[in-house]
């Protein structure tokens, strides 16, 4: 029975961990194709993990309006609404190492 309790506790932890990852907001999983999910990748593209949510949201807005110079983000940002961008920003802000 002790084993079962330990099993149940670990299972509960894993399930809650899974829920947050599975519930990444729409679009978020595509971002790490260019913005590295892990440190140490040789690229000029900044990481999003742990970055301030308001900063990411502001960048998305400025990319969309053309206020911030970009290569591809101006074209990509237009595909997301304010609310979608906010949810993605909050998700990455919450991703710690």
């Amino acid at each position, binding site marked *: *029975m002790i*084993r*079962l309790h330990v*099993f*149940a506790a*670990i*299972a509960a932890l*894993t*399930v809650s961990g*899974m829920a947050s*990852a*599975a*519930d*990444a907001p*729409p*679009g978020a*999983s*595509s*971002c*790490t*194709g*260019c*913005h*590295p*999910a*892990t440190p140490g*990748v*040789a*690229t*000029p*593209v900044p990481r999003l993990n742990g970055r301030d949510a308001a900063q990411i949201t502001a960048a998305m807005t400025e990319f*969309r309006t053309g206020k911030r110079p970009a*290569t*591809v983000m*101006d*074209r*990509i*940002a*237009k*595909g*997301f609404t304010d609310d*979608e961008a906010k949810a993605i920003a909050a998700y990455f802000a919450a991703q710690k190492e």
Partner: protein
Amino acid sequence: MTQTRRFSRRLTRRDVMKSAAAAAALLPMPALAQGAASRVVVIGGGFAGASCARALKALDARINVTLVEASRTFTACPFSNLVIAGMRELSKQQFGYDKVAAAGVTMAFTTASAVDPQAKSVTLADGNRLAYDRLVLAPGIDIRWDGLPGYDEAAANVMPHAWKAGEQTTLLRRQLESMEDGGLVVISAPANPFRCPPGPYERASLIAYYLKTKKPKSKLIVLDAKDAFSKQRLFQNAWKELYPNLEWVSLSSGGKVTSVEPASKTVVTDFSRHQAAVANIIPPQKAGHIADLAQVADRSGWCPVDAMTFESKQRPNIHVIGDAAIMGAMPKSAFSANAQAKVCAAAVAKLLAGEKPVEPRLINTCYSVVAPDYGITVAGAYRPKDGVLVDAEGGGVSPIDAPASTRAAEAKYADGWFNTITTEVFG
């Protein structure tokens, strides 16, 4: 990660199973919480399949994920045009599966010889069978060996396609290197759809760069089965500026290749015959063979899938991602494959837990290198509508009139993208 593995091994022990089953009888819990570990089999270890296998383990370490892949070394197609042009070595394209295995994915280095959608099992080449709750197919492309008269597997040793990276890539490179200055190089580009829509034109650009710098008396002709292609104006502007010896012949100008004659390296259209010193035939394609075995390919040769989950429209519990799948506007690119894989993994995890998948958004970005320090892109976001993925607002190609600094920046970002995506998938 060894802890995860030990844990899942413990999970299958009979006493735990019995206890879990007893608990399940009392409490209405989803399948996963009962301790009955779900089984997902992924076939194909490219950008789509390896991404999906890893994403599934990251979402829920208790899902038993097996990745079936014949080769122990993956050779990436993106950037392989640089290898052909002598600007990069093939080893930089190659990746192993050690980190995929370390992430908890069970590697099966073999081929799948059959899929039984009713029994939900996959038969491997060695006769072993793998049962699955969900099957993910990521087989990439196969060449249609019946698609172009004269072009069979033997012909590909003389007139390489180089559309699957590896030996074909180095074969085409060697042929260019041994060609005498003044030779004619012919590229045949297929009709849509095919893997990597801007690929033939990036390749033409980089071969033209090689010829310009190493064999300037040579000429390059691109014979095309289309009148329009990806990033067309950007490519054509660059060619006009950089590569006067590159000629593109469109479908309506008689560019469609109707047959090839390997013995003399002759490429034939309705209007002309081109005897080439080097001929690169990019032939018609279809979904990888396992798609036929699993009965998920339609008459087009590709696999229609639902835009929410990437589940086959023909067979339940089988998902298809990457180049083999068709689901609307998303192009067949490595970026798309990786993005689809992660969305598919999230949907599969939800379905296994008895929950409803979330409506996804996806992004694609395709870099093409036209010359050193000269990159161009097409990028866009996608959303489901009426069962297919459609273009969201925005999207499109690099500006037509951008300064050299923008082209140089995009070339640098292209490098960064390759490093990032290959690290996420294989690193």
